């Protein structure tokens, strides 16, 4: 098959599915669900063909072409740049996407607005595909906003819950803040290079590196701050857990939040070492911050959300560490490419084990009748054996247990950190230890001890539609760390990943990996004994627990800032607007016209004789003008 045809089909299948569901199947819930899953399956098949059997080609059509002064034209294309990087991201998207759709068949079985949910999933697949394949910055930005929209729609799925509505708005607005910088960055790039096309940009950046600047890289990274929920703009991701759990797995763990990492890896040639230095610190701080805050959460999905934040921080730190490699004498290109490759590797394994963990939590929540508090669960290990087993694999994979997926990718990041920046290395290592511990807490409290509520006591194992995706993801979480598993399609990335040659470091990694994952669970068992009904930290140090539960008051600070500072500025601006623009200019103009209207309306009496008087006056005036008595 022709690659261009497949690209078009890939775009059209989810889009048409979403449109058909939105237009014709709003009430036909099970039909919509089946259509969505079938289209996702076809989509995945085509995607796999593209990744493994088709050539890596580019395809582009001109979409918008404007003549500009000076004989130049302003071109925006609609095109596909399909290289190893986008192939890997596409692989993640189709695997997790399809499994989540199948899982949703079970999870959303009794949902009254299933059709809307599956329509949202389809439009998300379309939007995410756009980010993955797009060959220019404008197109990426458009699809970037579209995934934001899909995320908004899906977080807001239970729109009768005020918290869900607030969360969806928060996600949208916080992303808008980041996207503003992103848009400025895109304009900056165009200003310097005169093109949006990634291939041309790469060539021009290599030809004249002087055009690059730190500001440009950081502005582009603003979009990543929003979408990948990095430190100042991380606040929306934990709230986004108000959406249905499959959404959290697909959008808020595996694909959309990772789009920022993917984007940075895709435009790595626009990054300077100085910009990457900032990126590295943002990622590192996010990683450790989220890992600490995760201890104060009792909601199973919130713990996983902070864990996602922490892992995204890891990936961002890896991107940044690539820039540090430059400072340590490696070539610019090779260093940054290594950072990007390592980040993408962790993105891929994280997508598998985090989607696994989220879908597991979905299975648990479904079994416990939508109970999300881990202190109302407990004792589920006996009742949900398959979920328990797959969750165990997920916990070990994220903890970095040797030979599971998370171990290898975390190992490469730590290796990169070890070589380039000692402080970052120790912070990330400590974060890995914290990861093992908070996942251990989640694991111990959820699955062991006795049931702490009726819902948990009556929990039953989920059906096959939910268990099969869990099993597949569990297998992927085991084998996802071996690059051989991905076949021969990803040379560019696999070869860019630096490998530790120092056997002492390797041994250290095996030891820390084992200690952090297994030791984390054992230590968690000792601290948060499954027999207890209250969190140990909550009873031992309530002030600390409260601060962590409130996410170290960053959200509260933003709320305060918006309410006390921004709203007041907005009030003043609104007053000026009312007075000057709305009052004087708009209402003023309308007022003058209206005044004429009032005057002429008063002449309109409805009295025939009155009109005749006016007519007579008119004749007299006309006569006077005709005779020259009245000069005008």
């Amino acid at each position, binding site marked *: 098959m022709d690659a261009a045809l497949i690209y078009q089909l890939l775009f059209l299948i989810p889009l048409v599915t979403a449109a058909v569901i939105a237009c014709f199947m709003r009430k036909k819930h099970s039909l919509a669900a089946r259509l969505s899953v079938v289209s996702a399956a076809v989509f995945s098949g085509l995607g796999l063909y593209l990744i493994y059997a088709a050539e890596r080609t580019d395809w582009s059509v001109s979409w918008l072409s404007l003549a500009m002064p000076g004989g130049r034209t302003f071109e925006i294309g609609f095109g596909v740049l399909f290289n190893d990087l986008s192939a890997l991201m596409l692989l993640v998207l189709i695997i997790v996407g399809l499994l989540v759709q199948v899982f949703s068949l079970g999870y959303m079985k009794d949902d009254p607005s299933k059709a809307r949910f599956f329509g949202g999933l389809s439009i998300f697949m379309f939007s995410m595909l756009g980010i993955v394949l797009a060959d220019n910055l404008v197109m990426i930005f458009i699809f970037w906003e579209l995934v934001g929209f899909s995320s908004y729609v899906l977080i807001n799925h239970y729109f009768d819950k005020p918290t869900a509505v607030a969360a969806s708005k928060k996600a949208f607005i916080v992303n808008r803040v980041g996207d503003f910088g992103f848009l400025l960055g895109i304009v900056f790039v165009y200003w310097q290079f005169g093109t949006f096309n990634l291939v041309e940009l790469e060539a021009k950046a290599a030809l004249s590196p002087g055009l690059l600047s730190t500001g440009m890289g950081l502005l582009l990274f603003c979009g990543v701050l929003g979408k990948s929920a990095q430190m100042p703009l991380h606040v929306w991701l934990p709230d986004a857990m108000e959406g249905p759990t499959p959404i959290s797995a697909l959008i808020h763990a595996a694909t959309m939040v990772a789009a920022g990492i993917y984007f940075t890896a895709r435009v790595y040639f626009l990054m300077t070492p100085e910009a990457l230095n900032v990126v590295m610190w943002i990622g590192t701080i996010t990683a450790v911050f989220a890992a600490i805050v995760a201890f104060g959460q009792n909601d199973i999905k919130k713990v996983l959300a902070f864990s996602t934040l922490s892992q995204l921080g890891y990936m961002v730190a890896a991107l940044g560490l690539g820039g540090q490699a430059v400072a340590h004498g490696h070539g610019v290109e090779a260093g940054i490419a290594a950072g990007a490759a390592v980040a993408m590797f962790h993105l891929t394994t994280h997508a598998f084990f985090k989607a696994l963990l989220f879908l597991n939590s979905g299975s648990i929540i479904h079994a416990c009748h939508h109970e999300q508090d881990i202190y109302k669960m407990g004792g589920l290990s006996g009742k949900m054996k398959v979920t328990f087993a797959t969750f165990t694999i997920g916990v070990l994979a994220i903890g970095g247990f040797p030979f599971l997926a998370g171990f290898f990718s975390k190992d490469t990041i730590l290796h990169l950190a070890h070589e380039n920046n000692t402080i970052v290395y120790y912070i990330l290592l400590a974060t890995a230890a914290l990861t093992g511990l908070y996942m251990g807490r989640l694991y111990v409290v959820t699955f062991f001890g006795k049931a702490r509520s009726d819902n948990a006591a009556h929990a039953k194992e989920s059906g096959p539609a939910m268990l099969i995706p869990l099993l597949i993801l569990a297998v992927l979480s085991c084998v996802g760390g071996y690059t051989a598993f991905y076949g021969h399609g990803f040379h560019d990335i696999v070869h860019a990943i630096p490998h530790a040659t120092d056997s002492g470091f390797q041994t250290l990694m095996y030891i820390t990996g084992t200690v952090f994952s297994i030791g984390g669970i054992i230590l968690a068992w000792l601290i948060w004994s499954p027999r207890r009904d209250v969190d140990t930290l909550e009873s031992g140090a309530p002030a600390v627990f409260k601060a962590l539960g409130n996410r170290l008051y960053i959200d509260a600070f933003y709320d305060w800032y918006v309410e006390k500072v921004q709203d007041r500025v907005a009030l003043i601006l609104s007053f000026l607007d009312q007075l000057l623009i709305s009052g004087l200019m708009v209402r003023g103009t309308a007022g003058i016209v209206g005044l004429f209207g009032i005057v002429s309306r008063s002449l309109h009496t409805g009295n*025939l004789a009155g009109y005749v008087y006016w007519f007579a006056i008119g004749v007299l005036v006309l006569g006077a003008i005709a005779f020259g008595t009245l000069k005008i």
Partner: protein
Amino acid sequence: MTIGLNEFLVVSGLLFTIGFVGILVRRNTLIVFMCLEMMLNGVNLALVSFSRYNGTMDGNLLVFFIITVAAAEVAVGLAIIVALFRKRQTVYVQELNGLKN
């Protein structure tokens, strides 16, 4: 005394003025309509007088046109008044102010 152009024109002007005042002050549509006819005839008289005074036929020609048009106008106007009365049960202009609002 000889009756010349001036006298005819004075009569014509009187007819026109009486008609115009009638339109202004009378409330009954029929009377207003009649006053309108009177104004037309005042104009006709002036045209005939001038025609006679100048010894040409132009004015007379115009008068024929006016009479024809006035006849048509009467036919239509009276029909409208009849239809109006059927609908509103009145022909007084002060009550026919539906256009005001």
